């Protein structure tokens, strides 16, 4: 295929990653939260054999790439995989594939459904152009398996616990299991220091008499995490917001980033430069 006939639409929004070998590309797919159906995997295996060199690469952010696709086959592999609802991924200065753990759909610790949140974010923002790469990860509890701290925008499910004295038998199990030392039990009376709580819900899930209950479920938000040459963890800037609030804040964060970032600046560096208070004022 000559350059004139090249599938510019396929190339311009990213997803075909140029390889060091001439005219060969790694075809990146749009994967959300690491979820792939078995039928899609079969189609992927066939596509890797037909258009690639027979292997598949799993990326560090739960993505999938089919390497060694020749320029001439770029359109074919794309159309072929679209039949099983596997669409082209993205790269460059855009909102990237959304990561998520399995949360309460599978994991005993999960407090929210991060897959659902990730799908909604993907539908609304996937591949949207921004000043630099923008990575989002959603994790179901503070154990943070989906590494929200390493993403530009991190989301952590959490629960606000409440103690019901009339159900408590004073066994002090909650004090023993709390990692944040937020609970002290003395003579059958519980003292809870909410400032120390990270909203993991361990007290609720382990309490033998259900004397700890969920007062509120929500999302803790982190901004500015990244790895690379200048790594930094995302900083917690909002606690236990609702799903509606989460989407409002994400929307405002992207607006803030588009407006305030210098060319090629990650959002963490923008926040470092203008200050966390300015950022919070803009988005909360």
């Amino acid at each position, binding site marked *: 295929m000559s350059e004139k006939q090249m599938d510019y639409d396929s190339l311009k929004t990213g997803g075909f990653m140029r390889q060091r070998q001439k005219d060969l590309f790694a075809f990146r797919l749009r994967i959300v939260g690491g979820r792939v159906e078995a039928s899609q995997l079969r189609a992927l295996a066939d596509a890797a054999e037909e258009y690639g060199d027979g292997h598949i690469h799993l990326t560090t952010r739960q993505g999938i790439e089919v390497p060694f696709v020749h320029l001439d086959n770029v359109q074919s592999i794309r159309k072929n995989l679209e039949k099983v609802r596997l669409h082209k991924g993205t790269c460059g200065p855009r909102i990237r594939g959304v990561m998520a753990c399995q949360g309460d759909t599978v994991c005993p610790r999960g407090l929210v459904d991060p897959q659902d949140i990730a799908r909604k974010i993907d539908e609304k923002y996937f591949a949207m152009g921004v000043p630099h790469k923008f990575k989002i990860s959603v994790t179901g509890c503070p154990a943070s398996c989906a590494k929200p701290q390493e993403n530009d925008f991190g989301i952590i499910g959490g629960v606000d616990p409440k103690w019901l004295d009339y159900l408590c038998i*004073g066994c002090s199990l909650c004090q*023993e299991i709390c990692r944040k030392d937020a609970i002290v039990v003395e003579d059958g009376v519980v003292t809870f220091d909410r400032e120390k709580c990270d909203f993991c819900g*361990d007290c609720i899930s*382990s309490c*033998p008499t259900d004397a700890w209950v969920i007062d509120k479920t929500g999302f803790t938000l982190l901004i500015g995490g990244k790895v690379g040459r200048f790594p930094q963890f995302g900083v917690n800037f909002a606690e236990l917001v609702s799903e509606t609030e989460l989407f409002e804040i994400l929307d405002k964060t992207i607006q803030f980033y588009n407006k305030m970032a210098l060319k090629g600046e990650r959002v963490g560096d923008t926040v470092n430069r203008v200050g966390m208070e300015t950022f919070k004022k803009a988005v909360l």
Partner: protein
Amino acid sequence: MKENRETLDITKSIDTCGEVCPMNMARTKFTLKEMATGEILEVVLDEGEPVRNVSRSTKEEGHRIIRLERFNGFVKMLIQKGE
């Protein structure tokens, strides 16, 4: 403690100190499986993660933790077998 500790009759006792996940949880589960409803199992556990894992799974399987005694580095948990 609101419950009278003198009235508790321990049916069986296991020591899982030094064992790692999921063995402490698995031994507790299988020991309870062989016991009758209402009987009491005493489990000795290393403090920290084993207590979290065992207490969560015990509750999910319908048993009830009725007492926890804390010592230096380990805990004794009394579990009453559920239905």
